[in-house]
């Protein structure tokens, strides 16, 4: 079971006359855990749906091992997209039961691991006979996690698996993910809004901002490019000359700026009379995608 390369090129998607993905390129390499982060409405779920041929596109290509994924059973056999479950289905309550989801997953995914699924079902204390509409938000997430992990698909995509989970379960989820990854080395794409606690799990992070991919980078390499620089405003300005300034906060003469720069420039900044503090992935995300909404 070895995964291939999943690739999107020139992807455009509109809902009515609103374009949500703009000429987007993305390459997913095998054997890595990717984090997909973006603000509400950035287009994350739309992108994941199109990558897995569950949603249509207006233009562009999605290929797996060079072959289009659309209506391509061989490609889709290798890809699992575990969507967020909803308490409603069509116009009524979602009366499907947990066991219906498990049964269809077992039929659909050729690598389905029933023993693993049963183990997780027990660990998560999920009742097979319960209707989806009777589950809590966290329990719905557990069902999607269970299906994703037990699918054993070479490319496994989880959309907001952490939503509604308590902090203990979230930690357990990342443990399970890493355990499985250590065993199988399959590719994971995980979207989340709870960025910081997932940062150490992601080898690469994809940042989707307003329908465009603005980063697809090694997580630590990305985080290492950012700093907060603070001190007297004129000294800060001098130090940050030539660095990309993402945000500025001024308080009297004291100024703090969020900067991005290469290592060499950051090192010369370190020699001046300013304070330099590192960022974490969450800070980086706010700096890049905040667009002035965050204060």
């Amino acid at each position, binding site marked *: 079971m070895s995964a291939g390369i999943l690739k999107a090129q020139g992807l455009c998607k509109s809902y009515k006359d609103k374009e949500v993905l703009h000429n987007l390129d993305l390459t997913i390499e095998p054997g890595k855990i990717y984090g997909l982060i973006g603000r509400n409405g950035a287009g994350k779920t739309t992108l994941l749906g199109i990558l897995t041929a569950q949603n249509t596109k207006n233009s562009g290509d999605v290929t797996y091992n060079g072959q289009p994924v659309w209506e391509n059973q061989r490609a889709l056999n290798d890809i699992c997209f575990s969507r967020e479950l909803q308490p409603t289905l069509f116009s009524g309550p979602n009366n499907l039961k947990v066991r219906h989801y498990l049964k269809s997953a077992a039929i659909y995914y050729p690598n389905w691991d029933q023993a693993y699924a049963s183990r997780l079902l027990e660990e998560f204390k999920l009742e097979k006979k319960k209707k989806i509409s009777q589950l809590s938000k966290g329990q719905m997430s557990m069902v999607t996690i269970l299906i994703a992990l037990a699918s054993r698909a070479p490319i496994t995509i989880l959309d907001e698996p952490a939503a509604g989970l308590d902090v203990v379960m979230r930690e357990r989820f990342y*443990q399970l993910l*890493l355990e499985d990854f250590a065993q199988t080395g399959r590719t994971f794409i995980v979207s989340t809004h709870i960025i910081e606690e997932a940062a*150490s*799990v992601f080898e690469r992070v994809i940042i989707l901002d307003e329908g465009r991919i603005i980063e697809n980078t090694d997580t*630590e390499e990305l985080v290492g490019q950012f700093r907060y620089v603070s001190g007297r405003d004129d000294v800060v300005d001098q130090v940050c000359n030539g660095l990309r300034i993402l945000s500025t906060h001024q308080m009297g003469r004291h100024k703090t700026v969020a900067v991005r720069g290469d290592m060499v420039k950051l090192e010369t900044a370190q020699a001046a*009379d300013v304070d330099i503090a590192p960022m974490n992935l969450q800070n980086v995300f706010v700096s890049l995608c905040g667009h002035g909404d965050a204060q």
Partner: protein
Amino acid sequence: MRGTLNDQSLIYLQIARMLEDDILREVYREEEQVPSTNELARNYNINPATAAKGINLLVSDGILYKRRGIGMFVSKGAGDTVKEKRKAAFYDGFVKPLVKEGASLALTGEELVDMITKAMEEEKK
């Protein structure tokens, strides 16, 4: 291994530092095996690639070496290598800022040395 990760520096650097600390404390002695990438990943809930990056840093510093098919081991004289590395970092990270801060307070070199000598005497008591 002990300690927990923080977000004050990159994770692979923290992994490298924790392994160095454990070598200095003789948690891992010369020619002994250190935890594997996957063990580190599991223990700290981090991506194995990140753990590998930390280990590789110590390999390029000559602190760890690889035995093919077995795992990573502590090099001969690794403790001294770590100390030398830390001394260089101490100079850059503590002595230089100390001198800089002294200069901004208009301390003379003599005053600075006197202060260090005094602090060392207090430490002995």
